[in-house]
Structures are given as C-alpha cells and as structure tokens.
C-alpha cells in the first residue's frame, strides 16, 4: 500500500500496532506507519498458537533486510490463531497491513484494556 492509511474501525497502540475487536477476540497487526518505517518485510517469525501475550509486551518479530523490530501486543490474552501465510509471504505486511498482513488473533483476558488504546484520531495526532 503506497499511501498512508488508518482505518476508522481499529484501535491503536503507541508502538504502531492495531487491534480489530470482534466480541471477546481481537486481531492484531502493525500500522501503515510501522511497515513504512520498517521497509520491505522479508521475515515474520510467528508465535505459537496457545501462547499468552501481555499488553505492551513483544510477542513476535518482523525483519526487513536491515533491521529486526519487535511487534507489541496492544492487548492481553491467548493466541488462538496465527497468520501462517506470512511465513511464505511476509510482504503482505507491507502490501495489506490491515487485511492479509494480519498477524494473530487473540482471545482477550481483560477486554477493559481496550479503554487505554487510541482511536484513529488520537493515533493520527501521535504521528
């Protein structure tokens, strides 16, 4: 995706991660800003299904040719699904960061944590 884009229906974390809420589950990924700063993603090392993630803690790594970056969990919970397609096509994180570039689905352990995340307006102001 060449142009900056920040969907209205997502919640944002200051480390440039997003969460899409679906009941007591949420899908996580990194924002357009993050993938642009990172450059072409050439490797995504997926976490294990069943692993616990804690809000504000790193749960995965994305690598460009030059650099490694931690991906931070915007919310806490248990990983119930991992985007395995990214192992073969990590470039989806650049091409479609809010769609095919999603990283994990998490069953939330404390849905009230959502209140600490930013809406799109607040996130845009941060950039």
């Amino acid at each position: 995706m060449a142009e900056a884009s920040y969907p209205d229906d997502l919640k944002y974390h200051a480390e440039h991660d997003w969460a899409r809420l679906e009941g007591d589950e949420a899908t996580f990924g990194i924002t357009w800003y993050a993938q642009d700063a990172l450059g072409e993603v050439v490797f995504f090392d997926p976490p294990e299904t069943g692993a616990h993630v804690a809000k504000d803690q790193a749960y995965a790594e994305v690598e460009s040719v030059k650099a490694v970056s931690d991906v931070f969990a915007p919310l806490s919970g248990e990983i119930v699904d991992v985007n395995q397609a990214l192992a073969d096509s990590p470039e989806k994180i650049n091409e479609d960061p809010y769609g095919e570039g999603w990283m994990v689905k998490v069953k939330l352990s404390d849905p009230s944590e959502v209140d600490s995340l930013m809406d799109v307006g607040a996130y845009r102001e941060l950039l």
Partner: protein
Amino acid sequence: MRLSPAADTLRRTPLFDRHEQAGAKLVPFAGWEMPVQYGGIRAEHLSVRTGAGMFDVSHMGEIETSGPQAERFLQRILSNDVTKVAERGAQYSVLCREDGGVLDDLFTYRLAGGRFLTVTNAANHEKDLAWFRGHGAGFEVEVRDVHTDWAMLAVQGPKARAALERVADGELPKRMRTAELRLAGTRALVCGTGYTGEDGCELMLAPEGAPAVWDALIEQGVEPAGLGARDTLRLEVCFHLYGNDLSEERNPIEAGLGWCCKLDTGFVGADALRELEPRERLVPFAFTGPGIPRQGNAVKAPHGEGIVTSGSLSPCLGIGVGMAYLPLDDAEPGIRVEVDVRGKTRPAEVRARPLFKREETSG
C-alpha cells in the same frame, strides 16, 4: 513497533537534494545523513546485479599523500606492497596498529610517481588521518585531508560501464586502474574499483559537479541505490565491512586478509602478525532453514564458539547469510553450525566464498 530516533547535527553530501528528490529514506551513518534506500533494498540490490546502480559514498574520506618519500612512508604504514602499485594503479590494504589490530581497510591509488590518494571509511577518517600524520613525522612527505575536495559516487553493475562511457569524454580505466576524465562536464578521477562484486567504477568528483553527473547517469538508466543494498551486495561476495568484520580487536590474518599483508615490507604491525598463531577464521555461512542472522549472534560450532559479524537476508539467494569468526578447525565449507538468533537456534552451514556467484541466477 519500536523505532530509533534520528541524531541531530549530521553532515550532508553534495547529492543530498538528489536523494530527497529520488524519495530516499535518509538515516544517520557515521555522522552523515545518508540514503539507506529509495524504492527498496531488494529492488536496488537486483538492479546492481542485473543492470546498473549508483551509490553516493561521499561520506567516505580521502587522504592525499605526496612527496619524495611518499612511497616509502606508505610502505611503512600500509600492509600491502605499495611499490607494486603502478602509476594510475589501485591497491587494497589494511592499516594496522603495532599489535596487528586493524585500524581501517583502505584502497590506495597512485595518482603520479610520488602522489597517492587513500580512501578511508567515514567513521575512521579522523583516526586514520591522525595515524598518517603521526607516522609521517620522520618522512619527507605531506599528508593532506582532502575529504571535502571530493564527492564520491560508486557506479556498479553489468551495465555500469556502458552508462559511464556515454557520459565520459575519454576511455574508462580498466579494473584496478584510474583515469582523469570529465563526466558530464565535471572533473573526475575514475577508478576501476567497487564493493559489490560487479563490474563498474568508483568516481571521485568535484563536489559542485556531482549533481550534474548524477543527473546524467539517471538519464542513462542508472538506478539510485542506498547503503542498505551496498551492504547486502558486499556481503553476498564476502567483502569485509569495517566495524563489523574488522576492528582494532581483530587482526587481518584471522579476517582472511593475509593476502594483502606483505610481512617482508616491514609495515607497522608486521612483526606482531608474524608471531601470531591464528585461532579463528572469518568465514561465510548460509542458513539451511528459516531466519536471518545478525551481527553479534553467537555461533555453536563443532570445536567451540564463534560470533556473527555480518548477517542479512541475501536478496539473490533468498536465504539468511552472514560472516562469522569460527574456531580454525570449523572454518571449512560444509561444516554444520548453529546460530543463536535472539534465543532461537538456527541451523547453518559454512560456505566457500563468495556466497553468491553470477551463474547461480538466470537474471
């Protein structure tokens, strides 16, 4: 994602505006604001392997050494046999401390009988200059810092020479030779050297004319390439990067640079290197599974531990590759090792150099 902040007070090269126009991502590098990439490291890498790319390397320093004893002086501080460099010739060498530790790795060009130009790594320029001046005291020699006299542009790739020929007013130098030419009207010292494993030239340009040369080469289809691609290109052909693979704590023998250390010339550091019993060797390796090695990763080898000094994804091979110092007994192609990448064990294999040879791709 956590992103690192940019430094302030950075120097800019005469091509800074061109980088901005070309959409470069600019990063701090050895005190300079340099383009790390434009479109993307992989695309730039491949354009140099298959076409022609150009790198602004004006951050690299230059020292001019001249005088009746210039050759004798350089023979004393450079590791290679400087007397073997013909007029208009080029030579690679290392600059060593008394104990054999590597201060820098350098290309030196003989411009005339008693006049030499030495290209330094940006981060080492001031240190090298002080070393040259310190050791020059007993010689009839003048050491001049000519860093700001030159912009430097590396034009590399199988189509680089053809592009350069169309903007040059004379014949390009052969490999490891130099020629004084005009390119797009700009005074240039053209050198048949490079850091990518491809054919091409490195250009020393009058700074005010550098943008005109850049524009002329763009017109000839040469693609801008950043320091990111420069690093992956040199790693695929196993050229050393100072600060990664070489340092004052490393010696040229273990680094695999014994070929440019002519101990009989009596250069500073030669005595220490003659006494040295090598324990490790810098070797290329490739991952046999997923992952990307990075500088500082620990390596477990059959006869002991080692350390990765350079690591990246190889854009041409599509796998993680790197260079590591390994115990001497494990420095053989085919030896299996394990690399600890931030807590994950990644299997790898020692390879012969270079990691990439042109025959391996159809491109």
